[in-house]
């Protein structure tokens, strides 16, 4: 394999007595879709928070295309081309859907400090086309606070894509949606990421989604990587079956 886009090495983080991450290492290749799975409390969100600069790890390194990420602020990491969606959706509630995307575009281009010209027309077309890509362009004038949950997730996706990121971190992109909508949204994510050439690192509890959309799977349990590899190999791994089900059942059969 050529040099990976993201190389994660030995990341550890403890909260008080809880070892949320205990030395996590793996790679993500350019354009690759990697799923991080594991039971509740495995450390998935913590890993994402470390990777996008919201949390400082106790140990370890993460290198994105030659640049060390640890120690950088969130905004610096964002400018390096890392987009993020949150487990609990975070959007700007006092703005319209389109304004949410416009602000993201402005921030990516360093136009945050423009003082006098109105935002209104700036990058509006570009924002609109991003909204179209995720399928909510008809809602662009609506207040973000009034969106249905699925549309909110799509808005987050549009915002995260605004900087054409090299790496997209998606924490449970489909949580809280009905199964058919999950599949639809994840298909959109896959297509868009491929189009933009972005790698996707995502967590997900729905195994159908994981097996359908991940090129590789990383299984976390109590802060440790217990398995890593192609979906078929991970599915067959006895330790994974054990952690997931306590019995020998196929992890695919588990439904959230």
């Amino acid at each position, binding site marked *: 394999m050529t040099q990976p886009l993201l190389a994660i090495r030995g990341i550890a983080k403890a909260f008080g007595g809880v070892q949320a991450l205990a030395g996590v290492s793996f790679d993500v290749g350019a354009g690759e879709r990697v799923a991080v799975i594991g039971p509740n409390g495995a450390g998935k969100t913590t890993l994402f928070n470390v990777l996008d600069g919201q949390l400082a790890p106790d140990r370890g390194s993460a290198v994105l295309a030659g640049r060390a990420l640890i120690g950088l*602020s969130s905004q610096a990491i964002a400018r390096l081309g890392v987009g993020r969606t949150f487990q609990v959706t975070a959007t700007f509630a006092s703005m319209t859907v389109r304004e949410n995307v416009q*602000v993201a575009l402005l921030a990516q281009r360093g136009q945050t400090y*423009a*003082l006098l010209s109105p935002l209104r027309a700036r990058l509006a077309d570009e924002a609109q086309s991003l909204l179209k890509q995720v399928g909510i362009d008809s809602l662009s004038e609506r207040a973000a606070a009034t969106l249905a949950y699925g549309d909110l997730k799509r808005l987050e996706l549009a915002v995260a894509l605004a900087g054409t990121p090299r790496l997209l971190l998606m924490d449970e992109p489909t949580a809280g949606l009905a199964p058919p909508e999950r599949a639809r949204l994840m298909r959109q994510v896959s297509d868009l990421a491929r189009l933009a050439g972005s790698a996707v690192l995502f967590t997900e509890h729905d195994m159908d989604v994981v097996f359908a959309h991940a090129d590789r799977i990383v299984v976390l349990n109590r802060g440790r990587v217990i398995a890593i590899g192609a979906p078929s190999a991970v599915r067959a791994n006895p330790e994974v079956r054990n952690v997931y089900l306590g019995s020998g059942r196929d992890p695919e059969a588990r439904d959230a």
Partner: protein
Amino acid sequence: MMLGAYLAYSLIGRFGAGPLGYWGGVLLAALAVGALGVLLERTLLRRLYGAPELLQLIATFGVVLLIKDAALAVWGAEDLLGPRAPGLGGAIAIFGQPVPQYDLLLIVLAPIVLAAMWVALSRTRWGLLVRAATEDREMTAALGVNPSWLFSGVFFVGALLAGLAGALQLPREPANLNMDLTIIADVFVVTVVGGLGSIRGAFVAALIIGIVRALCIGIGDVALFGSVVSFAKLTLVAEFVVMAVVLVARPWGLYGQPPGPSAIAEQRDLQVPPGRRFAIAAALLMAALAAAPLLVDEYALVLGADMLIFALFAVSLHFIMGPGGMASFGHAAYFGLGAYAAALATRSMPMELALIVAPLAAGIGALVFGWFCVRLSGVYLAMLTLAFAQITWATVYQWDALTGGSNGLVGVWPAVWLSSRVAYYWLTLAIAGGAIALLWRVVFAPFGYALRAVRDSPQRAAAIGIDVRAVRWAGFVLAGLAAGLAGSLYAFSKGSISPDSLSIPRSIDALVMVLLGGLQTLFGPVVGAALLAWLQDTLARHTEYWRAMLGAAILVLVLLFPQGIVGALGAAARALRQRGIGKRAAAA
């Protein structure tokens, strides 16, 4: 606390200064203040629990104004020095220094009260419930505990302790009408340094600050590099340095926990850029105001200029509080810095130039203070801004040579061509109106959106590449510049300037204007400013007890319009429109 001192004074006077009378007086005073606290809580503050936290604070300030005037009416404006505690009038020599016995008693008493508080909060069922209720009021109610009486209890204890402190302070410092404000800044500094919600933190912080102060006074005058430096005058600076060091190392105080969501109400209404109609209305208003000198007398013009200046002041505060989500309780600092800078600058440059330079001084103040403030959020930030304002005030008050101390500076007159009332009114209108328009433009420019993004979701803002602190800092400085401009206009309009212009009441005025008008509206602060300026002027002319009237007016307005006046009007208009649509639909 002020009441505690006054009540103790009266009660001790009544019971005589014997041991029983004295300590009975102190205790009764504390109990009475506690009871009053409960009364206020149950009749008034209770109604506001659903309202935004800031509004509750404003209501409390209304109450303070009322109490202050009540004290003025009952006890008069003179300072009242209490009798000495019986049997404790002497002093004991410690390390060769005489230490008053009474002070020793206080030194012993403070840890005892503290320990009692700590035990009550951490070891009793009551304490457990209080802590649970502050975390989650509904949950506690669901557990079958009536949070209503719980909060009354908290108020009782809080007011009782404050009353006790006031009563105990009496032999050391005369009861006076400014006790409330001088003490509050100290209390805030101690709370912020110690960490909100930590009794231990408050105690340690009070100790540290006390020691630093004592050291400064103890060192006294020192010859440094050939000039005499008076450390005794540097107590405030020292306090500031302690606070700064602590907050940089531990943003939530020595023993504090990161606070929850911001103190500003979670108002997340869609904010729409003002359309053409708003612009036309604003232009018409400007035109009408420009024509005003043709219609009204000079007195009204002076009031009009005041209103305009305060409108700019209020809009500048609204800028950081509304879109910025940062409640500043010390916004007068920048107003006052601008005013003093203008007064000082005119000595060496033409007035027109001073008007440009002065806001920059306020901007520099905001740059320094803001650097600390933007690290915090919510109540912490509010308290820190207040502490900075108080430090600025005290510096101005004490720096006689430069600022004229309590007398302030006089002879701050505008240039000759602006010396007529009408000309100065027009200048004020042009500058204040222009600055307000600019600020509003910024709100809907990319920077304003970035500011709002940081307020709505700091996490998301950082994740898209916005530098959260830098944006907040820039917003803080912009607001400081605008407030400084308002201050310098004010200085030239009055011809003189006193420390009042950066005192806490002035900061509170700004808060009241913004919240009265409506925090979530663009135009609210302007309406609030005009209303408050007019109220203050009218009440001051007609009654000696204008403070009480103002306090009452504020309370009524807060109870009637929790969203502010313009906010309420907007909601009413929306409701009407909706009804209209409904009717049309029914007719069709």
